[in-house]
C-alpha cells in the first residue's frame, strides 16, 4: 500500500519553498512601494538595488532614505516579528497541548509592558535605558516569575498556563498602577500606542537583532519537529516514544520566550498572530510539525507585512496601531477558515 504523502517529494518541496520565498519577497516589495510619500515602483526598486547591491542608480537622497532606511527595514521587521510570533504560537500549542496557547501565555507581554512603563513613566535607568531594553528586561523578569511558579506547581502543561495567567495578571496590575497613578495623559497615550504594537521606530540595527534570533529559533524548533508530533498524546506517551520530555520542554519554552521577548521589546505587543496563524497553517498543511513550523513562519511573516501595509493605508495621514489591524482583519479571516474547516469535515 502506498499513500503518497509519506514519500519525500523533493521537486515538490523545493517548489513549495520557492513559492513561499516568493510570497514573502512579493509582500516586502509591495510594502516598500506603498506609503504616505508617493514613490513610483521603478524608483523604489532602484533605491532597493542601490541599498542592497550598491547599484549606483540615480535616486534622490530623500527617496533613497525612505525606501531603504525606513520602509525596507520596517517590512523585514514585520516579516521577522510575524514569523517568530506565529512559530512560537505553534510550538506552545503543541507543547502545552492547548489550542488557546500563544506567545504571551508565559507572561511576556505583561512583563514587557511593565518594563516599558518603568522606563517611560518612572524614568528607571535614566537615559541609559531605552524603552526596548526596559521591555526586554520586564519580559525576562515576568518569564522568570512564571517559570518559578510553574516549576513550583509541578511543571505540568495546565500548571504552566495557570502560572502564566497569574504572572500576567500580576504584571498587568503593576503596569496599570503605574499608569493610573503617575502618568500624564500624554504618557498614558504613548503607553497605549506602544502596547498595541508599532513598527514606526524600526531601523536596521533592530532588524540586525531580530533576524538572527528568529532564524536561530526556527532552526531549534525544526530540529524538534518529530518530538513535537509525539506530544499529541501527552508527555507520558512522548516519553515512552523516546522523547527527552523535560529537556525538550525547557529548550523550546526558552526558545519561544527569547524570540517573543525580543520581538515585543522592539515593536510592542502585537496580538492575534501567534494564536491564529498556527491554526490557519494547520488547516492548510495538517498537524505534522515538519510542515506546520515552516508554514507558520511564512504565514506569520506574510500576514504581518500585509497587516502593516493596511495599517498605513487604511486611514489617510494616519498610522493605525498594528495590533488593531491584525485583530480587525485576522479575526474575520480566521472565522472564515473555521467555518470552511467545519464544512469540510
Amino acid at each position, binding site marked *: 500500500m502506498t*499513500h503518497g504523502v509519506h514519500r519525500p517529494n523533493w521537486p515538490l518541496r523545493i517548489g513549495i519553498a520557492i513559492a513561499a520565498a516568493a510570497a514573502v519577497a512579493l509582500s516586502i516589495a509591495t510594502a516598500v512601494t506603498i506609503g504616505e510619500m508617493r514613490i513610483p515602483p521603478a524608483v523604489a526598486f532602484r533605491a532597493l538595488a542601490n541599498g542592497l547591491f550598491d547599484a549606483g542608480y540615480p535616486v534622490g537622497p530623500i527617496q533613497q532614505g525612505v525606501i531603504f532606511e525606513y520602509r525596507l527595514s520596517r517590512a523585514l521587521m514585520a516579516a521577522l516579528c510575524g514569523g517568530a510570533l506565529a512559530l512560537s504560537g505553534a510550538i506552545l500549542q*503543541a507543547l502545552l497541548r492547548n489550542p488557546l496557547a500563544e506567545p504571551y501565555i508565559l507572561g511576556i507581554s505583561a512583563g514587557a509592558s511593565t518594563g516599558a512603563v518603568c522606563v517611560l513613566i518612572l524614568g528607571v535607568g535614566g537615559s541609559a535605558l531605552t524603552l526596548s531594553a526596559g521591555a526586554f528586561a520586564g519580559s525576562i523578569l515576568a518569564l522568570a516569575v512564571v517559570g518559578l511558579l510553574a516549576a513550583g506547581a509541578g511543571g505540568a502543561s495546565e500548571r504552566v498556563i495557570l502560572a502564566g495567567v497569574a504572572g500576567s495578571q500580576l504584571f498587568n496590575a503593576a503596569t496599570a498602577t503605574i499608569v493610573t497613578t503617575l502618568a500624564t495623559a500624554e504618557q498614558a497615550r504613548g503607553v497605549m500606542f506602544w502596547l498595541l504594537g508599532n513598527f514606526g521606530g524600526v531601523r536596521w540595527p533592530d532588524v540586525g537583532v531580530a533576524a538572527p534570533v528568529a532564524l536561530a529559533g526556527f532552526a531549534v524548533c525544526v530540529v524538534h519537529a518529530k518530538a513535537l*508530533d*509525539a506530544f499529541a*498524546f*501527552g508527555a507520558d506517551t512522548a*516519553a515512552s*516514544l523516546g522523547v527527552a520530555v523535560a529537556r525538550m520542554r525547557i529548550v523550546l519554552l526558552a526558545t519561544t520566550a527569547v524570540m517573543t521577548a525580543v520581538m515585543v521589546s522592539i515593536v510592542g505587543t502585537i496580538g492575534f498572530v501567534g494564536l491564529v496563524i498556527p491554526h490557519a497553517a494547520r488547516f492548510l498543511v*495538517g498537524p505534522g510539525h515538519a510542515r506546520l513550523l515552516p508554514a507558520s513562519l511564512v504565514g506569520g511573516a506574510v500576514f504581518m507585512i500585509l497587516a502593516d501595509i493596511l495599517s498605513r493605508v487604511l486611514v489617510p495621514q494616519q498610522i493605525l496601531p498594528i495590533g488593531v489591524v491584525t485583530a480587525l482583519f485576522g479575526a474575520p479571516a480566521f472565522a472564515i477558515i473555521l467555518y470552511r474547516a467545519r464544512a469540510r469535515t
Partner: protein
Amino acid sequence: MTLSAHDVRWAAGGRMIVDGVTLEARPGRMLGLVGPNGSGKSSLLRVLCRLRRIAGGVVRLDGRDIDGYARRALARRLAFVEQQASTDVGLTVCDVVRLGRTPHRAALASWSDADEHAVEGALARVGLADRHDQAWHTLSGGERQRAQIARALAQEPGELILDEPTNHLDIRHQLSILSMVRRLGVTCLVALHDLNLASLFCDEIAVMQAGKLVAAGSPQTVLTPDLVRDVFGVDVRIRTDSAGHRHIEYVVGEAGGADP
C-alpha cells in the same frame, strides 16, 4: 531473560505507591497485573518503562539496568499504551501509528521503506488496515485502543506494556482487544480490572495490594477465593466449566457478602 523488577520502590507526595515489588515478565508470555483501585498497578507499569524515576531497587531489561539505556534505544524495546489516550490534534489513524516510528528516526530523517512497512504491518495486525486514513476522533473507543496498540507495535518492541487497555470498552471489545493482544506473540505486561478476563487471557497473574506484590503465578494457583477476599474484600465462588475455563462468580447479598 526479559523485563524484570527487583525490590522496586516509587513514592509520590511522601507516600509509597510502589513498595518493594519484585516480578519478571517471561518472553512471549502475557503477564496480568490485577489489584484494587489505587494498589499501584499503573504506577508500577510506568516505573517499568522508566516514565517515573524509581526511589529504590532496579528494573532490568535483558539483565541490564534500564537506567543504562538511551531513551530511544529503550523506546525501541519497550512500548507503552496508556489507559485512555486522548488528543485535540486532528490526526488520522495512520498519523497516530506513524508516531511509533519516532524512536527509529533521527531528528531530520525522511520517512523510509522500513518505517512504512512497520506501520502497515502494525495496522494489519490490529485489524485497522482499512481505517488507514480515517480521522482519529471519529474512531470508537475500541478502535482507538487498537490504533494505540498499532502505534506501540510500530515501535517494534520486544515488550508491550498496557495499562488497563479494556477500560471503558463494552464486553465484546474487551474480549476482542485481549484476544488480539494475546495473538501478537509479544511479551506483554497488562494491568486489568476484570478477574475473569485476567484468568482467561493471561499466562501468569501478579496481584498488587497497597503497593506490594501479594501473589504471583498461574491464574489457577493465584486467583483463589481466599486471595480475592483478602485483596478485593469480595466473596467469590470459582467454577471450572467443561472446557476447562475458570469462572469467578461474585457472591452478593449472602452471609459474609460484599457489604463493607
